[in-house]
């Protein structure tokens, strides 16, 4: 396209950007142009090179080839501070706030000015965009929604011309998403351009003006998201239609597989989450979903169930597996009873980052005949790892790949595959599709439903409300360490659960 004389050049133009890691090409000759005020969605599967591209624009890493043209001038973005000086801001997926200092102290790390001055500007920006936040609050006491507001305010304080948002809604409750979108639309109206990474196609249709599709590091297409349907976007992204999980009525048996009664846990870590009288049952053949914004006690609950945190002997009875009191039992004993776990943190909890996939298989699957008389059976180990990789379509360079070299979504598929192959009688899974693209997420959900139909009891902790609704049979909501009574997934609406996520159990329960 020719630029007409008199028209300003695009705000940002990427030309032929290529980034390699060894022999692996993460970005392959990517071209992209962005006008002022334009919101452009970056679509793609896990490992398609979206994050790599954003990191290159923000100066965290340098491209091997190609140029970045900013306002018509070629620039070398050698570090994030250079990017910030140009007017590029980034809101990170996992946030880049430090918990031990306050909001304004965090902002002072990258924005010049004295603390009182900055506090004043924070208040102004907060008012201007309806992002309510107290600059003096310590970050460790903030909810995820509030943390994201801080990230956005920090970007706004540098008067950005371009905002990069990496999956900004993946951790937000529904009403915060609405608020975020209002802010983003306001900003776009003032001429701020945005690059928006998300797997949520409905959001992209609501918010974005254009969409660029990346596949295996290359730009494979563009679309107008306001005219395309979600299904069309999905097809562009993964190359075929997304299957939706077949979800027949659950036929749970009556005897609970997992029973938690009046579980109380006082976290010795002052920044940790405590639990207040949590009760629930999970029966064979049903999926019980626990919804809620993260940080409300879910990770503590998961650790108590897995045995990573063990209860005192006299409280052991508050967790029962097949009617055996296991609250004080170590994880290995719980696994012997047929429970498997998929923790939230893939690196460090679910896998050892520096070990190969084959060795990571051994961590939990050694019970499945991979070890005899204390010696590893290499043949069986390799077979197990291979079937795990092929069953779950894990994109890696084979079973000898180091766990930390896989993209987040692929590692998650691998971990799930490992635990599913163990044919558990109870599966406890946290954030099963977090960071996984739509196609893979649909596959994972289908696998969970299939597993349920074989009579496995599944407890799923997830922040994604859609996922909870898609495959759960019953739903609990967690808020401030308390767990709501369960509701039938088919008899409540997303709005009801959204309200429960803000702690309004009792009113909502009465209304439902």
């Amino acid at each position, binding site marked *: 396209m020719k630029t007409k004389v008199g028209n300003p050049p695009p705000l940002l133009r990427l030309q032929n950007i290529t980034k390699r890691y060894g022999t692996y090409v993460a970005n392959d000759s990517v071209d992209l142009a962005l006008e002022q005020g334009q919101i452009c969605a970056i679509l793609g599967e896990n490992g398609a090179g979206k994050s790599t591209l954003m990191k290159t624009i923000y100066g965290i890493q340098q491209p091997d080839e190609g140029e970045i043209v900013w306002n018509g001038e070629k620039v070398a973005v050698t570090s994030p501070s250079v990017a910030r000086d140009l007017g590029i801001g980034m809101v990170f997926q996992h946030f880049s706030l*430090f918990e031990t*200092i306050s909001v304004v102290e965090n902002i002072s790390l990258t924005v010049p000015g004295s603390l009182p001055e900055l506090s004043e500007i924070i208040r102004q920006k907060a008012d201007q965009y309806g992002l309510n936040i107290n600059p003096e609050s310590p970050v460790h006491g903030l909810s995820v929604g509030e943390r994201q507001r801080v990230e956005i305010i920090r970007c706004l304080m540098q008067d950005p011309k371009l905002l990069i948002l990496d999956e900004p809604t993946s951790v937000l409750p529904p009403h915060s998403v609405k608020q975020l979108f209002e802010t983003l639309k306001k900003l776009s109206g003032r001429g701020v351009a945005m690059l928006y990474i998300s797997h949520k196609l409905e959001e992209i249709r609501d918010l974005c003006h254009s969409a660029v599709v990346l596949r295996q590091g290359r730009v494979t297409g563009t679309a107008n998201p306001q005219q395309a349907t979600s299904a069309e976007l999905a097809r562009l992204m993964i190359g075929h239609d997304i299957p939706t999980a077949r979800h027949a009525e659950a036929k749970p048996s009556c005897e609970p597989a997992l029973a938690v009664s009046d579980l109380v846990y006082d976290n010795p870590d002052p920044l940790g989450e405590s639990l207040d009288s949590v009760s629930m049952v999970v029966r064979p053949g049903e999926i019980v979903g626990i919804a809620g914004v993260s940080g409300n006690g879910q990770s503590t609950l998961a650790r108590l169930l897995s045995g990573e945190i063990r209860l005192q002997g006299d409280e052991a009875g508050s967790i029962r597996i097949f009617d055996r009191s296991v609250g004080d039992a170590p994880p290995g004993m719980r696994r012997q009873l047929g429970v498997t776990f998929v923790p939230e943190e893939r690196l460090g909890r679910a896998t050892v980052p520096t070990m190969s996939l084959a060795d990571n298989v051994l961590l939990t699957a050694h019970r499945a005949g991979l070890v005899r008389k204390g010696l590893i059976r290499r043949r069986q180990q390799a077979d197990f790892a291979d079937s795990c990789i092929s069953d779950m379509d894990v994109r890696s360079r084979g079973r000898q790949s180091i766990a930390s070299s896989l993209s987040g979504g692929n590692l998650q598929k691998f971990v799930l595959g490992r635990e599913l192959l163990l044919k558990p009688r109870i599966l406890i899974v946290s954030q099963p599709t977090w960071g996984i693209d739509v196609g893979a997420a649909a596959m994972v959900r289908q696998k969970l439903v299939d597993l349920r139909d074989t009579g496995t009891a599944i407890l799923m902790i997830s922040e994604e409300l859609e996922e909870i609704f898609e495959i759960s049979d019953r739903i609990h909501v967690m808020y401030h360490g308390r767990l709501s009574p369960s509701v039938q997934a088919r008899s409540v609406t997303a709005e009801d659960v959204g309200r429960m996520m803000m702690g309004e159990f009792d009113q909502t329960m009465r209304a439902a």
Partner: protein
Amino acid sequence: MTDTIIFVLAGAFATATPLLLAAIGEVVVEKTGVMNLSVEGMMAFAAAMAFAVTYQTGNIVLGFGLVVGASVALSLIFSILVLGFSANQIISGLAVGILGLGLSGLAGRNFENLTMMAPANLLLPVLSDLPVVGPILFRQNVVTYFAFAAAFLTWWFFARTRHGRITKVVGEEPAVAHNLGFAVIRIRLFAIIFGAVMSGLGGAYASTILTPGWSDGLIAGRGWIAFALVVFGTWRPLRIAFGAYLFGALLLGDLAVQATGFSVPPQIMTSLPYIMTIVVLAAVSRNALLIRLNAPVSLGQNFRPSK
């Protein structure tokens, strides 16, 4: 009796000085997420060097100056291992520490059991002549004032300045700090060098001012005590200064009690400073939230930025 108390309270500043210097150096290093276990060896090497140079030239400033250079050189070995090659921090620290101890034996070989005169303490007009306060506070060596000023400045640096906050967050989550554009490796390198300078000064002070003389083993665990002070002071410089002073006072208290002829089993008296300092610091610092907010989360973990 008053004299004894004044002796203990005044002497405690001097006894605390080498511990405090080394501990302030180490707290800055640890705040950036690096655990440097070479403090003891670093101090010993510095002590031997400082004594040798000062004894030969008679110039204590030259002694201190060379010590700073030598400590930095030694700490660069540690930096190359840990920051350059991502070697295990504990092993590297111990190895460099052992190297320092070995070098101290070498540097001090011809000076074994020699002694010299200590430089005079600072005398301030009027202030030094005040009763009680004068001898306690205003007749100390200039290095002692420097050590306590350093503790205060370090507190101020972390609590009040932007660079202090950046230094601190590098030790909290280096990956995030890197993504925000801070040079994690460079900040850690500066911290290690600062730590080396401070423990070098501590060692030099011990062999030229506190007990001017050299014999192998002169440092006698002071580096480890400094290391422990950092932890029990929960990474807060003012607590560390208090802990160092308390330890110095208890150490002298032991001597004072023995001088009065009061009979307490010597084992108890000798272990008392260690036990009491830990008990007191643990008691004043047991607020779990404050520990959590001050302890460097990534302590001991290496960081490699992706290119």
